[in-house]
């Protein structure tokens, strides 16, 4: 059976032509900021790597405190290529978060959130929260010392949120202290709940991109003709993915993910312990803030600041009225730059101090 026969067979059963027309309508503008368009696709690529390697790891992983650490050891030491699969999973998580941050801030600085792309921005913020959730819930699973104490600290921080804080934390922890219930809940969130929601939101985000097209930054002069997304830009995206995969392979083989000592809930936290780089801004802020500021609990202040930042981030397309009218918006550019500098500065400070 030739490919044309298959096509005819499929066309009788699926709206192939309509789909092709729909996909062919998308074009990618070419201008001096076009480079930043690749990072959304790169984030999606690393998300796919996460799914594949995550499924492979789940074949051997056992979500119970007595077995979790040993099962990871088995994966790393005894399962063929297990060390590589685990390293690919861990490193692609880092790269996914990095690509997501670059994508998000490039979207922010190019004001691509402006009308009519508000829903794309909102779904993007939801994906940011989901990806950080993936990072947090996956962190405990190896059940080593660092994983245990990072989760212990991470689940204490939101407790000071009024009304819902303690209840929300108890839902995630499943018990008063981090233990078996926490591990099974984190596992369930990490491999079922978050991927299901994540896939739906990713599909929504990508579909909106197809509907609304690719945004051109306000004030940018486009002199060259746009290129079709399918297949021209998709080929270029594919090349970027190959480069990304090469970097991922290099990191995974040259710096394989280590496994610390098995978690001991009775032991003290090891000195110099820090969370992953993408949680360092929160960690650094918690370190800097005193226990009480004008009789207000320091953690409450940090939680309020995080809440206010998330609210600001969600509302950006609706409060940046200049961008909505297609004008340059220097105030919001400045806000974005301040946030980038704070994040980069606190990551560096957290890493080197």
């Amino acid at each position, binding site marked *: 059976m030739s490919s044309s026969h298959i096509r005819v067979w499929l066309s009788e059963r699926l709206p192939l032509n309509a789909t092709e027309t729909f996909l062919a309508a998308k074009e990618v503008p070419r201008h001096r900021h076009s480079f930043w368009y690749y990072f959304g696709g790169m984030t999606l690529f690393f998300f796919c790597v996460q799914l594949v390697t995550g499924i492979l790891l789940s074949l051997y992983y056992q979500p119970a405190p007595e077995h979790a650490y040993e099962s990871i050891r088995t994966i790393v030491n005894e399962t063929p290529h297990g060390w590589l699969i685990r390293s690919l999973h861990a490193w692609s998580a880092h790269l996914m978060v990095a690509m997501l941050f670059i994508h998000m801030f490039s979207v922010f600085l190019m004001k691509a959130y402006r009308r009519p792309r508000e829903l794309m921005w909102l779904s993007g913020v939801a994906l940011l929260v989901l990806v950080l959730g993936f990072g947090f819930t996956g962190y405990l699973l190896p059940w080593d010392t660092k994983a245990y*104490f990072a989760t*212990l*600290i991470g*689940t*204490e*921080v939101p407790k000071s949120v009024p009304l819902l804080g303690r*209840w929300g934390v*108890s*839902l995630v*922890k*499943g*018990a*008063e*202290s981090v*233990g078996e*219930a926490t591990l099974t809940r984190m596992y369930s969130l990490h491999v079922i709940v978050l991927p299901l929601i994540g896939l739906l939101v990713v599909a929504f985000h990508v579909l909106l991109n197809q509907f609304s097209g690719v945004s051109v930054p306000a004030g940018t002069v486009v002199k060259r003709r746009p290129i079709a997304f399918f297949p021209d830009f998709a080929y270029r995206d594919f090349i970027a993915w190959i480069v990304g995969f090469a970097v991922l392979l290099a990191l995974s083989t040259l710096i394989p993910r280590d496994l610390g000592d098995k978690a001991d*809930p*009775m*032991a*003290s*936290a*090891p*000195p*110099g*312990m820090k969370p992953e780089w993408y949680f360092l801004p929160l960690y650094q802020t*918690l*370190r800097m*803030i*005193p*226990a*009480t500021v004008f009789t207000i*609990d*320091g*953690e409450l202040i940090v939680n309020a600041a995080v809440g206010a930042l998330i609210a600001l981030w969600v509302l950006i397309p609706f409060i940046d009225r200049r961008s909505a009218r297609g004008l340059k918006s220097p105030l919001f550019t400045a806000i974005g730059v301040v946030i980038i500098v704070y994040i980069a500065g606190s990551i560096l400070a957290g890493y080197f101090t």
Partner: protein
Amino acid sequence: MKEDQAGLIARRDVLKVAFGLWGVLCAAPVLGMILQYITPVAAKAGLRQTTLVGQSGDFAQGTVRIVRVNKDPVLLIHTPGGQFRALSARCTHLGCVVQYQETPVPHFGCNCHGSQFDMNGINISGPAPRPLPPYQVILNGSSVYLTRV
């Protein structure tokens, strides 16, 4: 809701609202049950339980040991004067286990965010907002029991 020329609400609209309310009424108990299911049952019985942690001879005078009470780490201090004291080993900042440190003066330090407590558990520096909660030490013969205060 749409009204016809006589100002009456259409039967179809009333039915739509009724179906919507019916849907909410059906969904609410289901959501309630799910919420109850995922909310952990508090281990009330274990909170004030008295736990045997060892014999007094197991803890030399002038030492500090971390013992387990209901899955929680507790600092059992046997002072040079022969007194027993116990404090929760969970830092009141974010719950890390504190560590006994002898220098420059004996104290408890938290490696996570640098909080420090004196030997009575009073927070003396760092972000910890409260002292370490005390435990009651009960000596029954040579047996040492701890219970949460």
